[in-house]
């Protein structure tokens, strides 16, 4: 019984991970397609728009801001769904932190 439960739990975890990866892949595609990357950079590192990675805002915060931005960003009223935003957030969460500045010799010259 314990063994069955273990496998079930493992399956749930793996399934969730797979779903998350799928969501992130969809989020990455949306991030490019919806022109987010043009301002925020393909890895959300910032550019003309704000930096979003590492540690992106929560899904709720992103959904709220995208509909009613207060800075220079135009409003995305209906171009992306809440689910799309969640997927985009899932993608941004996969972007690793950059190397520390002290470990980049070119940034210490």
């Amino acid at each position, binding site marked *: 019984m314990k063994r069955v439960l273990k496998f079930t739990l493992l399956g749930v975890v793996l399934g969730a991970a797979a779903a998350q990866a799928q969501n992130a892949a969809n989020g990455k595609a949306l991030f490019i397609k*919806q022109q987010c990357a043009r301002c925020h*950079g*393909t890895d959300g590192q910032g550019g003309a728009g704000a930096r979003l990675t590492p540690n992106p805002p929560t899904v709720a915060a992103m959904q709220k801001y995208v509909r009613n931005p207060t800075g220079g960003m135009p*409003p995305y009223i209906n171009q992306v769904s809440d689910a799309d935003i969640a997927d985009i957030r899932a993608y941004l969460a996969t972007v690793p932190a*950059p190397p520390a500045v002290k470990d980049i010799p*070119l*940034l210490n010259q």
Partner: protein
Amino acid sequence: MAKSKNLTPGRRGFLKGAAAGAAAGAAALVGTPAAKAQEGTPARGAAPPGAAQRAAETGPPAAVSVETTEHPGSDYMVDVIKSLGIEYYAANPSSTLKSLHESLINHGGNTNPEFITCTHEEASVALANGYFKIAGKPMMAGLHGTVGSQHASMAVYNAYCDQAPVIVVMGNILDAGQRRGYVDWLHSSQDVAAILREYTKWDDSPVSLSHFGESMVRAYKMCMTPPVMPVALVCDEPLQERPIPAEFDRRIPKLPAISYPTADPATLTTLAKMLVNAESPLLVASRCARTPAGLKSLVELAELLQAPVIDQHFRMNFPSRHPLNYSFRARGAVTTADVIVGCEVQDFYAVLHQYGRGRDANPRAITKPGAKIVTISANDLFTKSVYENFQRFEDADMAIAADAEATLPFLIEEVKRQMTGDRKRAIEARGAKHAEAAPKALAQARLEASYGWDSSPISTSRLSMELYGQLKNEDWSLVNDTVFLQNWPLRLWDVNKHYQFIGGRGGEGLGYGPPAAVGAALANKKFGRISVNIQGDGDFMYCPGALWTAAHHKVPLLTVMHNNRAYNQEVMLVGRMASEHGRPVDRCGIGTTLTEPNIQYAKLAQGMGVEGEGPITDPKDLAPAIARGIAAAKRGEPYLIDVVTQGR
């Protein structure tokens, strides 16, 4: 071309014989049917040639009388040009300037000025624009009548807005009786300079050689008197080709030493008092440093007052790593200042205000209540209809109509004179705070640069720092703007010499980068500097032929493509419109991207005789490519590296 030995200077002679027509070599052919046909030949395919002209081009040489001119008027024109010390004449060859062209290369020996072959008149003028910003003096650009002037007009506008003197020479045939082929009519105009008049400081249409001499020297004087700007001189084709009249004394007018307008002593006393007693003075500079002396003076004044400086980077006004450099902390500096002095500032209103989100939203002043605003600008001495000349009206307390660079030394002396011990101590304390803040600002910029460090497409910060990593030990000059790569070089490089940065497009008109970089590199060549152009792809495609000019004239220039495969600004702008209109954003690549196919810039360069490599998409491949590029520049050759980059 064999000439009659019997000819006396300034007189015409006639050679008869069929062979002469073939040997004439175009330059000396004047006034014969064959010559008329040749001169009427369409130079640029603007319209098909007539039957007679076609026959003249394709048929056997006729037995003709060939008129020669031993000393055409254009020889005198070249003598005048040489007296001004002009190094280069950039042009696309033109029928309306052909006699001047021939005189430059033969009578003038193609030196001072040397003919720089350009593939578009826009490139000729932009090249001269970039050249001025390094050389500190004007060069000439030749424009072919109506059509060449239209090609060049945007570049003239850029130079005008950039306060870059260029002496533009425009071919024309004013006398209807002298226009022979139909092309003469197409390429001449009653007032050919009219198209450039609103964005040149002055123009003239000389009708005699003495008139040309005076106007050429006057053109030089006017374009180099602040506000420095382009000027245009119409060069009448018959005046170039006719012999110099025997009675003409060939006098070359004298170019005076040019003195720059400065503020009067009473005004300087008042301004110095304001600055010495200010608690938070601020200096803002757009094109303050016309020359290295301007940079030095601005540093001296800033240090004397321990006043922050906002360099708007239209020139290299202030060292990037100076503790008083607040260029990327501008808002905080403006909101806390009690005296703000703008030195040749292009758009002071925008510095001191924040625009609202909507077009109709009222801009809001961000200055401290009661802050005193002072402008020092030679722009107050001259204006035309172009809005760039005056911008939005700023509520200044004092407007000083003077050249800022020339005024600063006098202001510095007056500040020193008024400085008291108490004020000196307060100012030193202020300086300590700025010195403490500067390293934190640099650390923050470095942290921001680290985000996306390993990204592909390559981040603009990585591109910039890979370049600097190898340039920093060389004598380098960055010869294009950095605004589209988030200004990383100006934020992170140690930029402290006037020639290390020259600003960008004065009028924000595309088609500037490649030719202006070639012009700046041409001026840098004699100093052995490595000129580097981080070049946007959209701008590049307007004037790619400038690369050929660089190869042809062996101009050492490293071009590094900031290839984001789009007019990225426009992707964002059209996207904003779609967002605001509640419509799909994902279609905003239509009309704004440069893909399908991707442009192969390295191949394009190779096709024009410039060694090139790329596209590079992995940041690890940058360093060896840059090393090869720098090595090529050191050999005196142009080189191009195509780097696929992030949008900004």
